[in-house]
């Protein structure tokens, strides 16, 4: 039973000596990272440091050319993960239809699916727009719908790739609130952002990337007070200027 639980859980996610090459360019080198259960881990770093790539590797969307990733000891990503992208990718269907589609792929149908769709839409405040075509919603509504789709799947791990980068402050706050709701239910959060204030508000841990290498992995409070690596110091100082 104990073993089975670990296997189903898929946590922690452990990356070991990971190298990733994309279009003949090395974007991650010797990356070690551990994502622990129920924590909010933020991947920070300058543009082009490999944040999004690391997120995709941890989600199992991208296979490393060297090294390995394990999910609770498994070598393939187990079910129970969801990802929200910088720009929500929504199907040409209604808001509710988008969530139903994801549930169907996860094997959830019928009354249970119906219940989850309604619950997810009301959680993100889109219940009134359930039958609206998803792709004509505003940017903020689209991102909330992407979060509702993830919510309906009740993931153990939620990956978010700069989910507020193209949103106005009010819409960004709404997204942050939903991320808190996920975490309150025990969902493990792995997120990238350019917004350091947001990382300060939400992060438990920070993985700092520079030039495709992890220069430190520390508690968020410690990271923002006194980062250990020179690269992180420089990065945070640049932000203060």
């Amino acid at each position, binding site marked *: 039973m104990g073993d089975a639980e670990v296997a189903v859980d898929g946590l922690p996610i452990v990356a070991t000596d990971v190298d990733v090459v994309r279009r003949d360019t090395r974007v991650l080198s010797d990356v070690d990272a551990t994502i622990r259960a129920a924590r909010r881990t933020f991947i920070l770093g300058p543009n082009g440091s490999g944040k999004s790539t690391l997120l995709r590797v941890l989600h199992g*969307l991208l296979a490393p050319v060297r090294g390995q990733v394990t999910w609770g000891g498994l070598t393939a990503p187990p079910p129970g993960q*969801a990802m929200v*992208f910088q720009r929500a*990718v929504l199907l040409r269907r209604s808001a509710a239809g988008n969530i139903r589609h*994801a549930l169907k*792929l*996860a094997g959830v149908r019928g009354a249970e699916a119906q219940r989850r769709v309604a619950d997810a839409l009301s959680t993100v405040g889109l219940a009134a727009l359930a039958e609206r075509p998803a*792709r004509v919603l505003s940017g903020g509504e689209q991102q909330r719908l992407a979060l509702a789709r993830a919510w309906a799947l009740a993931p153990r791990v939620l990956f978010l790739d700069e989910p507020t980068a193209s949103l106005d402050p009010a819409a960004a706050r709404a997204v942050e609130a939903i991320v808190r709701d996920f975490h309150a239910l025990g969902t493990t959060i792995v997120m990238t952002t350019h917004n350091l204030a947001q990382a300060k508000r939400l992060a438990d841990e920070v993985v700092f990337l520079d030039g495709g290498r992890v220069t430190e992995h520390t508690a968020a409070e410690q990271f923002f007070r006194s980062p250990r690596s020179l690269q992180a110091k420089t990065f945070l100082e640049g932000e203060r200027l």
Partner: protein
Amino acid sequence: MQSGMDTISQSFAVALGLVAHLDPRLTEIVGLSLAVSLTATLISAAIGLPLGAAIAVGRFPGRAPLIVVLNAAMGLPPVVVGLFVYLLLSRAGPLGPFGLLFTPPAMVIAQTVLIVPIVAALTRQFVEDAWSEYREQLASLRSSWLQSTATLLWDTRWSLATVLLAGFGRAAAEVGAVMIVGGNIDGVTRVMTTAIALETSKGDLPLALGLGLVLITLVMALNVGAHVTRHYARLRFG
């Protein structure tokens, strides 16, 4: 010159009369045209939609040259397709024993060969555009190859409807292929385009013009239909 203009305007008036009164000769030809081209379009949809989607989503050796060939095949000369199908169906050909030459099924086969590349190539384009947008999201949802293909075909359904309209238009308007494999036999394999060619050469302008009016109306209606479909889908689904 004056009398020439009179002939044309008289022919035009008679032609309008034929259309307005649903002249049996005209309706029979129009009916066969629609039946043949609609059947060819349905068969092409059954072959071309999954084929185009599979090429869009699949990654296999020879994919790039296959796409080039498919795109080039959109412009196959109907006469050559007719000749090719004629050779297949002729008594000495591999499909000769079925005795299909100079029957409506032969015309369906020729038009299908003509428009399958159109349906498959355009489907490939539309589905691949959607695929490049959806790929990561569907991978994140752990969608299988087959599930992804089904999702993409459904999500591009409005674009694919316009593809089928284009295929149908091409089939209904071509003359070379059906002329060769159908033989333009009165009451059996005579369709709008072959009838227009024959009646014009015989000098029976009213019937040729009447059929021409129907054909032009059909082709224009198809194009308007495609335009309206695209416009509606963009407004409704983004």
